[in-house]
């Protein structure tokens, strides 16, 4: 085992090493921070530990079977390399994992383990599901120091509890995943994006609702209000040049079908204006911009502002987003047909948490403070506070994996003492 350049970083070589480290940590009652590349370390509460379990050397591709639509990977495998691997077979992770590097201002890194543990899905979430829907099986080491497996290597499986669902989005607080099997899907032959200009948030939400309620199989529905362009944003090309709000709807599939559906959807959306068409490469760049929240990039004009990620019922999006923007003087971007709001709000000690949480709760949504300075995160709950019964059940679930709170202690909750 290589103890790495930082004295307390344990760079494990295999699952056995992970077991040993966790068992030692249990014996010493010493919490561990679990990292891959550490690209999302800035999300969540600071963990009061200097002992780091680094899985980045567990980086093998165990197997890739394009015809079975599955890939099995060690969790330290670099996401970028894996995307290249499956892209060569014209396949993709259909949930469009978010690259958080531009938003957080970190180097362009990230591992498969981090992708699953964070579970941040992009625009196609509305049609293809999230990371949780694409994780078919996992090997992991629990806070008991035991390697266990869950799920399998086939797309259809109901054998035993689906612990994969819990691991996806658990931010490393349940187990240290060492190997995962993921579903891959064919890349669409073509993509067409319809673009409407100048809609206010409410009208845009209605247009997106109409599109998503149509039979045209829309795979992306986003709205960028005018104010979102106060920063120069990559990937938009000339689209943002006119200083108008952009509402965009994506259609993917075989070329003839995407083109046909774009035509039909344009007719359906006629009451909202005349939509223009963006194709293939330009369309892909546009959706990458939305996926990675580039208007709020750390290098841009709003780079110092705290950023919230709010999930809500899609039809409530515009009301919630416009209220927040008005009350705080902040900016918002809508994805998922209104069901996902990225909100960059002016700097404030509490990052406007009371307003964000109250507004979110009012519509049955929840908000995560995805970017904020460490001193803000010390005083504000990063993850949405839950109803007491759900919070208690979640804590019992967590303890069923890690009773001594060895793994990423305190990352999700401020009240967990280090």
């Amino acid at each position, binding site marked *: *085992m290589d*103890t790495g350049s930082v004295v*307390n970083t344990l760079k494990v070589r295999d699952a056995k090493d992970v077991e*040993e480290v966790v*068992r*030692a940590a*249990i*014996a*010493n009652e010493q919490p561990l921070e679990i990292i891959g590349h550490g690209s999302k370390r800035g999300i969540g509460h600071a963990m009061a530990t200097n*002992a780091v379990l680094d899985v980045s050397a567990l980086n093998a591709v165990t197997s890739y079977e394009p*015809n*079975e639509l599955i890939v099995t990977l060690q969790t330290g495998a670099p996401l970028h390399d894996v995307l290249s691997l499956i892209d060569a077979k014209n396949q993709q992770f259909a949930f469009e994992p978010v690259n958080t590097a531009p938003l957080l201002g970190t180097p362009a890194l990230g591992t498969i383990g981090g992708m699953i543990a964070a579970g941040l899905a992009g625009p196609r*979430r*509305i049609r293809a599901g*999230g990371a*949780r*829907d694409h994780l078919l099986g996992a090997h992991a080491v629990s806070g*008991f120091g*035991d390697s*266990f*497996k*869950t799920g*399998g*290597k*086939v*797309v*259809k499986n*109901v*054998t*035993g*509890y*689906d*612990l994969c*669902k819990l691991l*996806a*989005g658990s931010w490393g607080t349940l187990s240290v995943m060492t190997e995962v099997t993921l579903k891959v899907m*064919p*890349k669409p032959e073509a993509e067409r994006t319809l673009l409407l200009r100048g809609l206010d948030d409410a009208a845009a939400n209605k247009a997106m609702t109409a599109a*998503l*309620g149509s*039979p*045209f199989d829309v795979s992306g529905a986003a709205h960028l209000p005018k104010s979102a362009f106060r920063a120069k944003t990559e990937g938009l090309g000339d689209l943002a040049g006119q200083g108008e709000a952009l509402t965009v709807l994506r259609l993917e599939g*075989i070329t003839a*079908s995407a083109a046909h559906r774009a035509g*039909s959807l344009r007719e359906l959306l006629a009451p909202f204006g005349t939509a223009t068409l963006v194709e293939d490469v330009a369309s892909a760049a546009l959706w990458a911009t939305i996926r990675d929240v580039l208007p709020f990039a750390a290098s841009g004009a709003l780079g110092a502002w705290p950023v919230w990620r709010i*999930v809500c*019922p899609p*039809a409530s999006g515009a009301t919630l987003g416009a209220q927040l923007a008005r009350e705080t003087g902040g900016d918002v971007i809508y994805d998922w047909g209104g*069901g996902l709001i990225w909100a960059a709000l002016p700097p404030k000690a509490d990052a406007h948490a009371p307003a964000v949480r109250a507004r979110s709760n009012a519509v*049955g949504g*929840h908000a*995560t403070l995805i970017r904020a300075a460490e001193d803000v995160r010390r005083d504000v709950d990063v*993850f949405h506070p*839950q*109803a007491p019964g*759900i919070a208690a*059940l979640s804590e019992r*679930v967590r303890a*069923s*994996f890690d009773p001594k709170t060895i793994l990423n202690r305190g990352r999700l909750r401020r009240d967990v003492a280090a």
Partner: protein
Amino acid sequence: MAIMMPASDQAVLARRAGIIAALRAIVPGEGVIDTPAEMRAYESDGLTAYRQPPMVVVLPDTTEQVSLILKYCAGQGIKVVPRGSGTSLSGGALPLEDGVLLGLGKFKRIREIDFDNRVVVTEPGVTNLAISQAVAHAGFYYAPDPSSQIACSIGGNVAENSGGVHCLKYGMTTNNVLGCEIVLMSGEILRIGGKGCENAGYDLMGVITGSEGLLGVITEITVRILQKPETARALMVGFAEVEAAGECVARIIGAGIIPGGMEMMDKPAIHAAEAFVHAGYPLDVEALLIIELDGPKIEVDELITRVEAIANGCGSTTCQISTSEAERNLFWAGRKAAFPAVGRISPDYLCMDGTIPRGALPKALARIRELGEKYQLGCANVFHAGDGNLHPLILYDANKPGEIERAEAFGADILRACVEFGGVLTGEHGVGIEKRDLMPEMFSEVDLNQQQRLKCAFDSQGLLNPGKVFPTLHRCAELGRMHVHAGKLAFPDIPRF
């Protein structure tokens, strides 16, 4: 009964009259059933080889009643078995002699249809098909379509994570539910998720889905609805060899085409189905594929052409393409009637449900043939070919001594083979009691202990549906114990933190 259920608690049985009275105080009138004749309807589910009358049946119609029943039972140490429509094929709703059978059949109301958010909020006793029917006027439907959709309840679908022929493209239940109201064994009522795409915190909805009624009793569900595809057409393709059909499936997927459904039948299944519904199936082929493409007409027409070319390239011997809805439905009629069709050629049959990697299909079918010879029993195979989910139907006669035991041993060997080939014990029917004792084929004791610890987080007394899924029951205190090897650290180069 070959499967051992947890020993009955004689102290509970001795208190039966008092328990019934207490339940009547919670659910008045005909909501409590305690006569042997009336309870007979509840003594088994779709796995009819196993029967057990419950101690008492209770049919609440409000969440508050469910909560009071569970709280009472938890306080008294009484086991509870939840039940939807009773269509489980794995025995998930098999009653316990000393248990309360909690039926959700009175939860029949759709609470809200929200087209703007594309969701339906429903009570668990509503049938799968009724949800689609309730939104059909606006062009919507609920995608997962288990074969039993006319009868099975959405609550049961969530408990079992039900699939269906279209789940290759549209996902299983777990990919189509957003939230629920659930009552824990303690009686606590919780709301999880809602109309948004994702829940806050751990994905509790995800782990409740497919938990086979062991974690809680669901009293409300929020499901996603989709717009119906503009059109659907099907190809019916015959092959002289199973291997060629398997290759065809692989090439279709390899070409980036995800059909709405892709089903395979082997020769015995084709013959049984054709004799039953006269769908025009070719009788001289070894394997038949039904491949359905759905979407806009222009897309479907194009994909039909591509799939036909792939099938030709794989040496198909027959290929029919539907030109009307009637014809498409006829193609499906035989497949959808495959179970009853097999029921006509054999006094009894056992339906298995393993999943294998698609590529392992030819060797799996060869193994099944070998096993059939070994056990001297026939087997017809229907197969959700697109996602590798195999349904061997083992033919036997329960009246012949020893045949059911042979059929069960045959089935167990098939499932062991599925695991051996890299697959799993069950693709969509659930573990229940049927596959419970095979769980160690797939999972180690450590794996199963972790699953049971999760159960403890929801039901610390182990009173909800015990005897299902897990071959060995452990007390929660025992599972939670840590084995700390302080002072005996094997790795000297681990820094002392």
